[in-house]
């Protein structure tokens, strides 16, 4: 039934947000720490487990997929209810501070992306010194490509 899917989603959200609040309290922070992320991990595990057990009929999945599909419209509604006017009230300091932060963060992405996977950069640049690894890394680009295709 559709409600089972929605209830699973709702349950993950409630437990995740509660865990995020507790985590915040433990850290002495006046905010929720990663509640949504914890809920997402729970849904990945629980959903995966139930799927393996064949306990996820299409109608149950529909309850989750509906909210997944509502994501972009909800984000549009969110954009329309942002306090944009207040941002403009902050003037040039607010704009510049955030612009510098955003541009600097964008610039870091390719750097961190490369840092995280030494195997792939090996194939492009300095392979000659260690030959045995070359064999290993030769297979890794195809893995990476398969992963990228899956993502799309």
């Amino acid at each position, binding site marked *: 039934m559709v409600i089972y899917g929605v209830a699973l989603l709702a349950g993950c959200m409630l437990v995740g947000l509660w865990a995020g609040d507790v985590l915040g309290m433990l850290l002495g922070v006046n905010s929720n720490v990663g509640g949504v992320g914890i809920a997402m991990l729970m849904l990945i595990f629980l959903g995966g487990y139930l799927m393996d057990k064949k306990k996820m009929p299409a109608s149950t999945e529909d309850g989750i997929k509906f909210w997944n599909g509502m994501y972009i419209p909800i984000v*549009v509604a969110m954009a329309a209810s942002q306090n944009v006017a207040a941002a403009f009230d902050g003037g040039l300091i*607010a704009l510049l501070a955030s612009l510098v932060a955003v541009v600097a963060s964008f610039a870091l992405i390719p750097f961190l992306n490369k840092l995280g996977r030494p195997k792939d950069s090996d194939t492009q640049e300095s392979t000659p010194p260690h030959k045995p690894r070359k064999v290993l890394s030769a297979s890794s680009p195809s893995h990476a490509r398969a992963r990228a295709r899956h993502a799309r």
Partner: protein
Amino acid sequence: MIESLVTQLEKQHLIAAFALVGGAMYLSYLISDKLTKGRIHGSAIAIIVGLGLAYFGGIHTGGTRGLADISLFAGLGLMGGGMLRDLAIIATAYGVRFQEVREAGLSGIIALFLGVFVSFIAGVAVAYAFGYRDPVSLTTIGAGTVTYIVGPIAGASIGASSEIIALSIAAGLFKSILVMILTPVAARHIGLDNPRSAMIFGGLMGTTSGVAAGLAATDPKLVPYGAMTATFYTGLGALLAPSVLYFAVRAIF
């Protein structure tokens, strides 16, 4: 007649918001298709239109919730509010393979810390350039640049004035707006096209609304990865800004 229609729209506000957003998205995708030949994603246009409407709603009513402050559009506040937004974000995680999350996990954590530091330093540097010298104001503006939730938390705990706190909120709001608008533009140049870079992106940017909308306008498949790391960012910022980062600023200035 018209009056009763308006009353009905105000009463059934959430349903009216569904219809309104649906219509706006149809138009946005039409514009994307016909005017830009699909070069600008329909959802990117819809988000920019939404932000534009929010600006006019804000000046029109003087409220804080954009278009949702106009009673006719009050449902937008519920539809786009934290509750349904979080539900929809979590729903995007369904079907994600944990292996992909784990593979990028470490880069995501590094990105989180780096993201908080970079945004904070950017905020402090700009505030300094504009003549602020006291550590409390510098820290609060830096914290606001982290996210608009961290600014007031840090400001309140180290005793910043309300003008500085308002300024820090404005910086955070601008950040989330800029992330929404610039992400689809920058995506191709920074390699934002796979789960791993999406997790790094979420960790570096941190603003949940900005990341949520920015990725939606780039590639909806990447949303769960970016959102997952981004949701830890505000908590981390709220932890670091009033403590470690404040002490660091006080030591320097």
